[in-house]
């Protein structure tokens, strides 16, 4: 299946430099097929953003990839070679970040910043680039693009700025778009517009999207497949239908129960459940299964043996006691 995948991440391990014991990512494996949307979900600090930054070769200073391969179209990505990665970033892989208010340089115009990525990767004149930028701004749904192109970022709203960031990410028609919580900082109505924009761009350009989020509502609308991460591990992977219909990992089940869903009101109008406890500190992970201290199903085995990833039905899951939600209740 490698031949057909756009992106393969195999057993990726990321640690703080010089600290062999602690790890941010503890052997994460997943792949993205061309044109599909893969959602990566999990609580804050589970490592989902780090996985995407590792793909871009943009891990924050002090973190390093300890082992594992990242293949793009079957070829290893030179993630440790900044010069080589520059040809991938913005051209083959675009990225949209969480904070549109902070994502644009305040001293340059919108047009300058979008044109910059085109001029960096393509051999065209500034005048041609400007025409392309106007077209891009129109495509991402900004009003009067030939005027807004000369505006500075502080004149734009958060939603407009996120559209500009998306225009930058799509400017060179990449194969893959990594969207790291693209709507978390936006109003709900704007969220829906932005997600529709991403979906439309995906259909028109045939790009694959990695959607990093903790919003399961978005996942249900957008994703083809879902990877659930917890404390630097992939704990479950399944198609979006399978995951929502029969989540196997108790963490996934907890996430789903903690999500409000209209139309499926819980009996007796009970308040939403939360997952007890907190994500463990990376410096002091629990023994055995990382989720054990918060898991209702934990046994002696979970304390000593870290669960290996295995196939259960259509789902890949890392749990000693996988099973349907109803089985526990």
């Amino acid at each position, binding site marked *: 299946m490698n031949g057909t995948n756009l992106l393969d991440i195999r057993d990726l391990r990321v640690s703080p430099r010089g600290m062999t014991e602690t790890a941010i990512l503890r052997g994460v494996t997943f792949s993205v097929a061309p044109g599909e949307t893969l959602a990566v979900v999990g609580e804050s600090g589970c490592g989902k953003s780090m996985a995407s930054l590792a793909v871009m070769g943009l891990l924050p200073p002090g973190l390093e990839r300890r082992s594992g391969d990242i293949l793009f179209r079957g070829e290893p990505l030179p993630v440790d070679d900044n010069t080589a990665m520059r040809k*991938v970033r913005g051209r083959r892989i675009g990225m949209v970040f969480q904070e549109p208010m902070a994502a644009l*340089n*305040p001293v340059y115009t919108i047009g300058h910043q979008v044109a910059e990525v085109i001029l960096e990767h393509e051999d065209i004149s500034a005048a041609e680039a400007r025409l392309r930028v106007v077209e891009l701004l129109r495509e991402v749904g900004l009003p009067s693009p030939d005027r807004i192109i000369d505006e500075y970022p502080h004149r734009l709203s958060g939603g407009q700025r996120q559209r500009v960031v998306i225009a930058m990410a799509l400017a060179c028609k990449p194969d893959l778009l990594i969207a790291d919580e693209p709507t978390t900082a936006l109003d709900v109505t704007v969220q829906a517009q932005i997600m529709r924009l991403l979906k439309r761009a995906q259909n028109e350009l045939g790009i694959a999207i990695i959607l990093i989020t903790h919003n399961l509502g978005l996942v249900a609308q957008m994703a083809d497949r879902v990877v659930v991460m917890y404390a630097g591990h992939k704990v479950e992977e399944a198609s979006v239908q399978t995951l929502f219909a029969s989540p196997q990992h108790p963490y996934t089940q907890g996430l789903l129960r903690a999500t409000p869903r209209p139309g499926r009101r819980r009996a007796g109008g009970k308040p939403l459940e939360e997952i007890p406890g907190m994500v463990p500190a990376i410096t002091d992970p629990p023994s055995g299964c990382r989720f054990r201290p918060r898991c209702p199903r934990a046994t002696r085995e979970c304390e000593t043996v870290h669960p290996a990833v295995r196939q259960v039905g259509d789902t890949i899951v890392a749990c000693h006691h996988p099973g349907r939600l109803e089985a526990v209740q």
Partner: protein
Amino acid sequence: MSYLGKRLVHVVLTVLGIAIINFFLLQLAPGDAADVLAGEAGTADPEYLANLRREFGLDQPMLHQLWAFLQRLFMFDFGYSYRHNMPVSTLIFERIPATLILVGSSIAMALVFGILLGVVAARTAGRLPDKLISLASLLFYATPPFWIGLMMIVVFSVKLGWTPTGGMSDIISNKTGLAYVLDVMRHLALPAITQAVFYLAIYTRLVRAGMLEVLSLEYIRVARAKGISENRIAYHHALRNAIFPLITVAGTNLGAFLGGAVLTETVFSWPGVGRLMFDAMFQRDLNLLLSILVLSSIFVVLVNLAVDLLYALINPTVELR
């Protein structure tokens, strides 16, 4: 334009305030020009002193003197230096080019090298180049400039003989054209460096801190995700934003540069306004002294206004109101 008008009214009021305060401050100093002249002439004849004072207008009541001074100030008439037997304006304008060359080149040096070193330090934060730059800037920051000046004279002029010990040009040889320019530059090197190092150290630290802050911001990560080179990210994306605090501080430092010129010009016998002011103080040449103070305050206030306008020009998020 109304912004500029408002600011110009401020300029006038500020300068007026500075002139009045300085006038009274100088009255507080014991002794006057007549005392100094009489002392140098070796006589203390009361008749002679009274004559001198009447001639200089020093026998008038203080408020009369102030009023006369302000009236002349508004006509840009700076009066007469009885000490030098010359109009004050001639004295000052003769000396201004030398001071402008000294202050201008030291500010330029402090800015250019401060920015370069600050950027390098920030980009190598925690590694050897950063540690060396930070150590050096701490050292220069903590060393008194006059001592640096004297030590540079000892090393470069006395021991190595590379540069002259003082003055602005060779007195004996009558150089012209390029030879004269090179001669002035040779004389300029030590005083300009002496005056620059302290501010160079401050600016390096300021730019380093600013760059570190900006480099951690989201839009820098976005630029990296666009495939932009690290050099372009540092100089095009980060520095443009990190430089704003430097412009503010450098603008307010201008007065300090003029004050520093008094010291540097004295150590290196540089024939500038600072030296003139220093001498005027000891000679109780109050006309000259006051005029220099007022002129330099006008200069500083105007440059600060220019810096504010420049700031609005290069920072699109600032709007002048």
